[in-house]
């Protein structure tokens, strides 16, 4: 499944790059992220508790930052699994300056499987988009502080 979108931040590109590279910010912004530990530089173990309404699940996973080209782009690899199913994905995150704003755009591929896919295929794209939206909103909040 293809996922893509973009978000606008009122800040310089370098500032946004640093924001996204800071583990503390990611930990606060990733929806449901309870724990994020760096195993090796650029490789993180994560614990997520996410859900919609009655569908709650705990997922353990790995996130990896690859091919960083500061301050323009990097690739993100992720995978997680929990009792309701598994998620695997990769995305290219790109930063570009537009006047006073930095546009962060992402484009990637996501696979969702397991029981959650059996029950909710129709909603996964929308929910993924919602969570991406939540993530960017939280990142923007951290920009202000």
């Amino acid at each position: 499944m293809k996922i893509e979108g973009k978000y606008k931040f009122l800040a310089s590109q370098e500032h946004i790059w640093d924001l996204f590279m800071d583990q503390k910010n990611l930990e606060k912004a990733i929806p449901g992220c309870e724990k994020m530990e760096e195993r090796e530089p650029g490789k993180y173990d994560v614990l997520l508790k996410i859900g919609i309404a009655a569908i709650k699940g705990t997922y353990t996973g790995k996130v990896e930052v690859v091919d960083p080209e500061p301050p323009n782009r990097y690739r993100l690899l992720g995978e997680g699994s929990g009792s309701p199913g598994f998620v695997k994905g990769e995305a290219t995150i790109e930063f570009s300056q537009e006047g006073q704003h930095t546009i962060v755009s992402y484009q990637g591929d996501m696979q969702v499987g397991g029981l959650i896919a059996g029950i909710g295929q129709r909603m996964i794209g929308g929910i993924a988009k919602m969570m991406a939206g939540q993530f960017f909103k939280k990142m923007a909040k951290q920009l202000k502080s």
Partner: protein
Amino acid sequence: MKPSAFEYYTASTVAEAIDLLERYEDEAKIIAGGQSLVPMMNFRVAQPEVLIDINGIKELDYIRQEDDEIVIGALTRETDLELSPLVQERCPILLKAVSLIGHASIRNRGTIGGSLVHADPAAEIPVAIYGLDAKMRVVGPSGERTLEPEEFFLSYLTTSLEPSEILVEVRIPVLPQKTGWSFVELTRRRGDFYIVAVASILFMEKGGVCKEARISVGGVGPTPIRAEEAEELLAGQVITDELIKKAGQKAAEAADPESDYHASAEYRRDMTRVFVQRGLTEARNTAKGG
């Protein structure tokens, strides 16, 4: 798989249910028909610690007319909606929508309240509710409130119900005689979750002029949408084939669907156009037929 363990309570009044919800809050889930909840529990995608069974709240099982509204208790089974002469005569669009839900065995247990609170983006009843501008009456520890569809439905599987609130009633305005209506949906097989569903209502005045149109579309967003620009196109006009064609196109522009395993966004958007057109054509015919 089998569900995880839970504590089980039954409530025989609304007050009891609210009491239990207040006590257990986030840990508790209400079970009515269970046709959406139990599959999730069997897969352990939902694991409520407490289940509050409200099937015994007989006071919530009714269909009656109060002035110009059909008033339906939240616990009314979908099959009973189909069998009700009141619904058949005064609210045929709801009847049609309900008849397309799954299969008879599911409708025998499923309730109108459960369908609304579960807020599945591919459920039929919410689409009809948006088209009818029906109101949802909700009761909680601090009293009751009445919500419009846009206030009630927030997103995928999410309503604005507070943790201790329970939906008790749906109030549906009786449509005037000679109102055109239709409910159409696209599914691969009868009973599947639909790709798109469209509820159309045409309030008519003399001379075949449409006073007001309502077009509600499901399957193209986290909640049903009203295609307002398409509706405005029809208001005050005689409904011609050309106008129906344009309304379909406008409705497709209003849709913002996701791609998924079942259908791409482009397909859903195009099917919005097709099914709005089909729905409006059918509604125009029922208006003529009186």
